[in-house]
């Protein structure tokens, strides 16, 4: 049973991980806590659902969902991020949350508040080892999210754009003097982050066969927690954080009860923030210069 719970926890972790990475891209590089990410996560699931309901073949529906998320991310960059440069650091929070509320309500108007059943793409195939049940869909999505993260990590560490992104993350000023073109890099980052969030939403929909306008909130906030537990701005930190939060959640449910999930998951977050604010893997911020 513990093994089964760990398997269950891993699936959850994979989703949190992707969302955490989406957050970490925005915050680590741009110092922007992008609260529209839960909305983009939801868009991934809901738009794909809408597409399938219209009778689109799934590659088209999925592509449409990712495309929609990318376009929305560009709007977020344009209206929530860009005008706020130079104002109080918490200001972009308002408009990015505005986007979350807007997206949720648009989907609400279109699809209603109900949780909707997402059609099963794969026949209900499960691998059984003794008592242990592992869904094929679970395995595939887990593999996909791991692949995505590994690819991203490769991308950041090995490619030209990746180096530019890491330079921006360290110092915008240095990047500017090196001729990094912020005008195109920032929107690309937003799109990348949105693609991660919406793919997480898609995988979620495929896996749990459900979508709803509010599906992003719970997952999104846990994703933020995962990001911080691991270490803000670090991809592998987000992975570790996602793993931890997912496992803590599942183990809490199976040992203490579902009502204690928020206490343990967010308690862990609080503890980390107090004891080691830079997260498990993360560099402490350096002292300012006068």
């Amino acid at each position, binding site marked *: 049973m513990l093994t089964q719970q760990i398997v269950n926890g891993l699936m959850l972790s994979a989703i949190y991980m992707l969302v955490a990475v989406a957050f970490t891209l925005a915050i680590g590089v741009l110092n922007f806590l992008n609260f529209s990410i839960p909305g983009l996560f939801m868009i991934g699931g809901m738009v794909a659902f809408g597409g399938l309901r219209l009778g689109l073949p799934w590659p088209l529906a999925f592509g449409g969902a990712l495309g929609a998320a990318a376009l929305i991310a560009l709007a977020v960059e344009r209206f929530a991020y860009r005008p706020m440069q130079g104002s109080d650091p918490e200001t972009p929070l308002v408009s990015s949350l505005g986007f979350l509320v807007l997206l949720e309500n648009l989907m609400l108007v279109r699809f209603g508040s109900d949780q909707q059943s997402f059609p099963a793409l794969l026949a209900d195939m499960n691998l059984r080892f003794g008592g242990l049940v592992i869904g094929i869909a679970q395995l595939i999505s887990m593999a996909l999210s791991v692949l995505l993260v590994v690819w991203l990590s490769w991308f950041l560490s090995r490619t*030209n754009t990746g*180096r*530019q992104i*890491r*330079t921006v993350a360290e110092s915008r000023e*240095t990047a*500017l*003097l090196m*001729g990094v*073109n912020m005008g195109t890099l920032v929107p690309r980052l937003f799109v990348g982050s949105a693609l991660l969030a919406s793919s997480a939403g898609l995988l979620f929909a495929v896996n749990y066969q459900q979508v709803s306008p509010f599906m992003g909130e719970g997952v999104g906030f846990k994703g933020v927690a995962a990001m911080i537990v691991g270490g803000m701005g670090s991809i592998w930190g987000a992975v570790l954080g996602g793993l931890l939060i997912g496992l803590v959640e599942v183990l809490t449910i199976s040992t203490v009860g579902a009502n204690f999930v928020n206490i343990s998951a967010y308690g862990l977050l609080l503890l980390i923030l107090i004891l080691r604010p830079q997260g498990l893997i993360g560099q402490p911020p350096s002292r300012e210069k006068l």
Partner: protein
Amino acid sequence: MTFLSVCDLCVRYGRVEALSGVSLSLREGEIVTVLGANGAGKSTLLRAVLGATPSQSGSMIFNGQDVTKLAAHERIARGIVLVPEGRRIAISLTIEENLLLGAHLRRDMVQIKKEIEGIYERFPNLGSRRNLLASCLSGGEQQMLAIGRAMLARPKVMMLDEPSLGLSPLFVTKVFDLIKELNRDGLSVLLVEQNAGKALAVAHSATVLELGRVMMSGDPQTLAADPRLQEAYLGEAST
């Protein structure tokens, strides 16, 4: 033949006028040095030439083309490259990645690799630690890396902003030797320096800024002898 010409450049930060009508020109293969006290606007001038700080008015011709309207990355692609003040090495990147960052606008990987090897040959200290984080370098080594990084952008004009700042005398000499060497290989250099004596010794031409304006300019020997320069630095009454 003028290679880079800056004409009547004005830069404001909010209400503060940092540069007011600065003009400057540089011929191909020359070292031009810009001198001046703190706050005279030297760094602002280099940033404006790079395009990283927007200028309110003025024009800039480079290599026969009007580059006034171009963004920093477009100017860098045309060969105007800056080695910034304080070096600005990305310390979360490795030494090799810093070099690659300098080449980020280029696509010719094979040639880039070759040039990086060239840099390592020139600075064995960098080559032996190529895969370590740049934070492990000393100030002088960081300056070498910063110059190497700029080299990889294939500069036609290299601008150096106080390259000797905070370096030990040994490294200061190294840096100036390097600048001379690069210049001998045909690179044009725009050099901002605190160390006026060293700068004037290598320069073909010099400009002194004061409070955002050109105070004087001319050939370095004349300037070095000009009491106003001593005055600008040491405040000695010219007797």
